[in-house]
């Protein structure tokens, strides 16, 4: 066990965990940030997506000891009031069904838009293809990413 200091959502957190503990479980079990979801544990479904240095990463396979000082953003910190353009678009398009995968979907989408504010439909689909939605809300996710792009401009 060792103590790790993490920069998450603009705040400093400490976690006393084993070095190989994935960031996902540090967030969920130790820091109470349960908005980031467990879906597969092998970086196949995208439910656990967070931002590290602004990039979308799969927290379920990212060991806490490899994070260092890299700033992390989770769904809880995507915006202060839940009004990030992606969150607004998700609400307007009424995307969620069961809702479980949507935090990961939005983290992938917001990382895409921060690098590519005006993605083509093909670029949207390509970026979002790693995130599984078992309810099948894919049409609405695609629509919401495109809508969020118009709000980002």
């Amino acid at each position: 066990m060792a103590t790790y200091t993490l920069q998450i959502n603009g705040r400093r957190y400490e976690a006393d965990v084993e070095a190989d503990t994935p960031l996902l479980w540090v967030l969920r079990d130790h820091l109470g940030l349960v908005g980031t979801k467990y879906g597969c544990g092998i970086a196949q479904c995208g439910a656990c997506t967070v931002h590290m240095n602004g990039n979308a990463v799969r927290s379920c396979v990212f060991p806490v000891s490899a994070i260092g000082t890299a700033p992390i953003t989770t769904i809880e910190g995507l915006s202060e009031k839940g009004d990030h353009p992606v969150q607004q678009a998700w609400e307007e398009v009424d995307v969620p069904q069961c809702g479980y995968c949507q935090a990961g979907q939005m983290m992938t989408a917001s990382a895409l838009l921060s690098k590519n504010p005006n993605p083509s439909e093909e670029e949207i689909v390509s970026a979002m293809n790693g995130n599984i939605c078992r309810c099948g809300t894919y049409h609405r996710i695609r629509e919401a990413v495109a809508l969020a792009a118009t709000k980002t401009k």
Partner: protein
Amino acid sequence: MSTLSKPSRRNFVKLAATAGGGLFLGFSWTGSVASALEVVSDKALASGTLDFNSYLALSPDGIVTILSPNPELGQNIKTSFPMIVAEELDADWTKVKVVQAPLDTTKFERQVTGGSGAVPHSWERLRKAGATARQMLVEAAAKRWKVPASSLKTENGMVLNPKNGKKLSYGDLATAAAKLPVPTDVKLKDPKDFKLIGTAVRNVDNHEILTGKPLYGLDFYREGMLFAVIQRPEAFGMKLKSVDAAAAKAMPGIVDVVTFKNNVAVVGKSTWQVNKARKALKISYTPDAALESSADHDRIFKELLDSPEATVRRKDGDVEAAFKSAAKVVKSEYQCPFLSHSPMEPMNFFAHVRPDGVELVGPTQTPEMARGQVAKLLDIAPEKITVELTRLGGGFGRRLSADYVLEAAELSSLIKAPVKVIWTREDDMTGGTYRPAVRYRFEAALDAKGNMIGYKLRGVGMNAGNPTREDNFPSGAVDNLLIDSVDHKSPITTGPWRAPITNFLAFAEQSFLDEVAHAAGKDPVAFRLELLAKAKKEPVGEVKYDIDRMKGVIDLAVEKSGWGRKKDIAQGFSVYFSHRSYVAQVGEVAMQDNQPVVKKIYAAADCGMVINLSGAYQQVRGGIVDGLGHAMYSNLTFKNGAPEQNNFNGYRLIRMKEVPEVDVHFVNNGIDPTGLGEPALPPTGGAVANAIFKATGKRLYDQPFAEQQGLKTV
């Protein structure tokens, strides 16, 4: 650490009581009287001594609160139920709040999510509750203004006097209305006057979902709670022989390793620690039943198809004579694999077994059944067990089984501590209660004019029960018909999977009818319409589907898809009745690089009146994506009793790139609403396979299509 906010009945009562007066209506969910209503005082609400079954509360600040009893897993019941109340109440929708109720069999009935049955069950009750409250508010306003109640109108949370333009808000009238007797004979709206029902209303939980609030079972945390994972036998047909847990017990964070039944539970302080320690277990198993492989299933299916011992499900006329006299016979077999439900939130449940009672918290589609089974297991009266419902991260039927609830309860009773049992994705995929593998043999006899004079269906399955729906179309439309089935008892466990049985039967039947239509030289739609016309004119035996409603969705799908009028794209047709609703679909396939590619699916649905257009549209589209994905890609195979896929790297779910355009239309017939959680899924496989046949001349008989045919979608 965060804790899940708990919208329990107690909280709700407090919320209502502290609002300081107002109208509280208790209305009945149970019994034959659809909606007996009674005004409830806030004191009685606070004391919790009421006999009434549910509450509709209107506080002086105008907030309308309603308790929602059914588990929410993405079917959007938590939004559509209050919409029904708000419609009849003429409430201001922005002031409606909905609270998830815990299990309470003294207050509610049918606290189940399954069978697409919640809305049909509660439609009348919810409307009457809203209408009664509205009438009381109108009467309160009439008294205050000293005018006849019949001269007043309601709109958007206000009572209006059209003669002088005066207005009173519901909040202002709530306390006065509560003092009036409850009217026994309220008038419901004419559906043509509905303002809210039939519109697109967003999910009431969107904000909490989109900001990552703790909503799901896996998010639940209780101070002092332990975490557990369970190693179950890796193959169906194996049982536990011996366990060496010494190494696992010595690992950091591990509290105990407990063996019960065939389970070895690792209990500890965090999810990661128990998962790591689990890998250090040394367990040996011994077989106690057949260790079946998929190749065995293929062989067993062929034996059962020719078995002389089948259960006859339906018999009309003289089938043998019809086939003897036939000018042409069509015969085909269709097969599907086992499927995992794979909801995105894996199985999990919290249990705290104390000497004085049991607390259960988590995601289940059947809280009452889960409680009953836990009561039996622990020999505790059900009244001493509470079940709190979290939001479900999907279900698809998997959470109709309570196995994981029982595990949590048994483990908590053994370790005498609060514990959450968590299934990993691998546990979830290899842990059983699958969609059963099934094989069908269809035979059709045609006369010289291409009329279907005989029809035979045998269904054989792996723990599938009755894999036929013997009273469904085309039963009733064929003079000579025989439907029977044979079941194989397999150690592999099965259970309901979204649109049980029909999720594959519909594909097989609709593909076969397409084959028969082609053999008869008829357009597939015209062929079905001929059969329906015959069933209407000269019904054979009992007909349990509504012929006009089935024709209605066929006509709408034909119109919207331009059936038979498109030259550059291949179309396939499918129509199916399930869970009280009717859905017709047209699949469109184009050839790209010599490959059939699914480009678009049109759907025409008749679920009666649509409550929430946004939820309903997505329910149909999501059902089609689900139906397409599993028909195309998903396959759970077995080797010596063990599943050969254990996560999303080997078991394929549909992804965004593979989703075609989907165009949804509803038949607007004003009939009382029926279900929509399942009915859109069954027709999809057939619509797509029939379009692929049209494009390539190749019939698809086995699912998944892509694996066996090398097919692409978009």
